[in-house]
């Protein structure tokens, strides 16, 4: 079964109910309040932010070294896997994702600069920055533009036209979860656009060398060199490294899917977003994102993507600032009557799972 053509995927939106309830003036005033938060945090950036990210990096490196070392003790295998998983999760989420957003560029530190950092993941940071920082964060939840809606393989919105292919929605989602880092790496190749003819294979040629180089390096490290260094324990170490990558994949997939797919998160049409004001852009970011409630450790391990709303409002502010501004953002949203979608992990995950299954089936009533 083939993926349906992209141009058939999205139906034009006829009526816009939940959007633009605010007047242009209200949106401007709302945008000004958001700008004020941003200015205040930027003026306050300093040593505490630097110390924070340095400490996270230190912790990540310590978990990484401990994990690699513990593979020499076969009984400690589960501990080694756990340690390496924590390392990879911290590396990809609180460090990698946030550093590559340029959240720490103001420190002028080459090792934590968005221009130089790369993560412990088969997706080359350079390619991810384009599809994520530019495409996804600029065109958040605009159907037909934001390729993160369903990642080109899933049906995640009612306005995506149903096709028998989508009966496999839950299976595809499961596979994407298991192979998430590979999915992220392949995301930039825009396979769905190649199938639909919008993109040619030639367009991807420039991406292959960087992608292959990164894949080779990651595979060499995790599946050849480190296992080889443990000598006779090679198969155990190999399995451990693969398991750590899998755990990271599952965790990252679940956190990320809770960011934009729980029930109540809005999508937008291109027309709604033409010449949009700064205020409307903020408004769209809030309606298009969902938070997850939890404790400090949970926020750290989710790279503060549990504050997806704050992250989408201010993607370049250091993520440790999101919890501290979340209360204020929520209060402002309440004043303007803007829905602020948040809930515990199990609720958001349940909602996402329900949507994945629901979207697999054709709509019950065809709108005329």
């Amino acid at each position: 079964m083939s993926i349906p053509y992209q141009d058939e995927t999205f139906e034009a939106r006829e009526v816009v109910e939940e959007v633009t309830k605010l007047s242009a003036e209200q949106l401007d005033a709302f945008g000004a309040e958001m700008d004020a938060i941003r200015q205040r945090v930027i003026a306050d950036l300093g040593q505490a932010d630097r110390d924070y990210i340095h400490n996270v990096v230190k912790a990540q490196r310590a978990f990484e070294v401990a994990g690699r070392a513990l593979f020499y003790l076969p009984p400690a295998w589960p501990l080694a896997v756990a340690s390496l998983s924590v390392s990879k999760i911290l590396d990809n989420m609180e460090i990698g994702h946030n550093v590559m957003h340029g959240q720490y560029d103001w420190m002028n530190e080459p090792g934590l600069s968005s221009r130089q950092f790369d993560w412990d993941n088969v997706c080359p940071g350079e390619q991810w920055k384009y599809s994520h920082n530019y495409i996804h964060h600029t065109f958040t939840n605009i159907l037909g533009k934001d390729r993160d809606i369903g990642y080109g393989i899933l049906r995640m919105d009612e306005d995506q036209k149903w096709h028998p292919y989508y009966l496999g929605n839950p299976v595809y989602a499961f596979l994407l979860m298991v192979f998430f880092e590979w999915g992220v790496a392949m995301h930039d190749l825009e396979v769905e656009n190649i199938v639909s003819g919008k993109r040619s294979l030639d367009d991807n040629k420039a991406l292959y060398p960087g992608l292959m180089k990164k894949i080779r390096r990651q595979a060499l490290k995790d599946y050849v060199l480190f296992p080889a260094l443990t000598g006779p324990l090679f198969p155990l170490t190999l399995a451990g490294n693969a398991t750590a990558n899998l755990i990271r994949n599952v965790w990252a997939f679940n956190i990320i899917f809770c960011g934009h797919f729980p029930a109540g998160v809005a999508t937008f049409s291109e027309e709604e977003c033409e010449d949009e004001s700064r205020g409307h852009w903020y408004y769209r970011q809030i309606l298009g994102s969902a938070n997850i409630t939890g404790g400090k450790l949970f926020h750290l391990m989710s790279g503060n993507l549990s504050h997806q709303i704050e992250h989408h409002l201010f993607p370049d502010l250091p993520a440790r600032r999101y919890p501290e501004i979340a209360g204020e953002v929520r209060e402002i949203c309440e004043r303007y009557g803007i829905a602020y979608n948040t809930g515990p992990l199990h609720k958001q995950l349940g909602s996402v799972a329900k949507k994945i299954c629901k979207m697999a089936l054709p709509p019950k009533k065809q709108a005329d």
Partner: protein
Amino acid sequence: MSTTLASTVGGRMLRSRVVAALASPHGVDRYLELVNPMWAAEEVRARVVDVRRENADSDGAPVATLTLQPTSTWRGHRAGQYVQVGVDLPDSGKRMTRCFSISSASSLPGEQIALTIRAHDEGQVSKYLVSQAQPGQMVHLSQAEGEFTLHESAATPTNNHLLFITGGSGITPAMSILRTLLRDGYDGRAGRKVTFLHYARSAEDQIFAAELAEIAEADNDVTVHLRHGDHVFSDFELRRLVPDYRDTDTWACGPAGLMELIHSAYTADEVLSARLRTEFFKPPRVATGAAEGDVSFDRSGTGAANTGATLLEQAEALGLTPEFGCRMGICFSCTSRKTEGTVRNVLTGAESSLPDEDIQICVTTPVGDCAVDL
């Protein structure tokens, strides 16, 4: 010993491809630095081992000499070269990088170096290093850079007369060359003269005063002329000291005012003498009177009328935050793509109209309309 770790077998191992593959994608140094900041495989860092005030009696800007012990990755320097120094400024959490000439004699790999720094009022890095740096703390270094060097050595004497003209803290690279000559056995017996002409604000502000007096005293054919206060450079005086100065190998380093005077003294019939080598501490100021055209920054979709300032400053004035480092055209951190228009390099005065050209925006001003991919 930890400091010699990477210089030996361990160093070669740390720089091997296998270790690089194991440390991918972050690199070996990102791990080593967490264990011991003096361990490095590629990067250069240094520990401050001594801070000495040079002009304690002066009421002018304080000057201090910092002695640094670099990591074993330091490849050494030729006398006259400079180094980029990065400091993590406390409170702001920012790393600031500036260039400083090395004042000590040439160094071999891993050897100590000294920087002599004047704390400029507006210079965050120099002020911090002079007044707050403490023995034991770490700074980030580049490898030594620059061509303001002496290509002869005391061991291979020639008859060339060497002339150094310096002003203020511009004395540092010349001092490094002079110290290297003397350390390596220069004694004047080869018949090569060295003339050292220096301009300082006041006698109290004269750095290296005692050492220079000693050098002048010694029987070594080095002539030291120190000029203090309002005594400005003139080609008339220079001609008296070195009659054929335009045909003498000259190293000049100092503030912009002095450098302009030296430039014109070495220019005859509109031709600048090839014997003059110069080093700037700050890029010369650009006249902002005749700025024309519009500057546009394509990626951010902003633009404004050309103010005549550098593209980096104009971008920052519009709220952009392009990457930069030295802000004086050395480190190439700020290199950006100019898509169209004519620009002038303020260091060289060279104009260029090539499309899609990589330029250093910190030392480039637009000449008329100009578009940059920022």
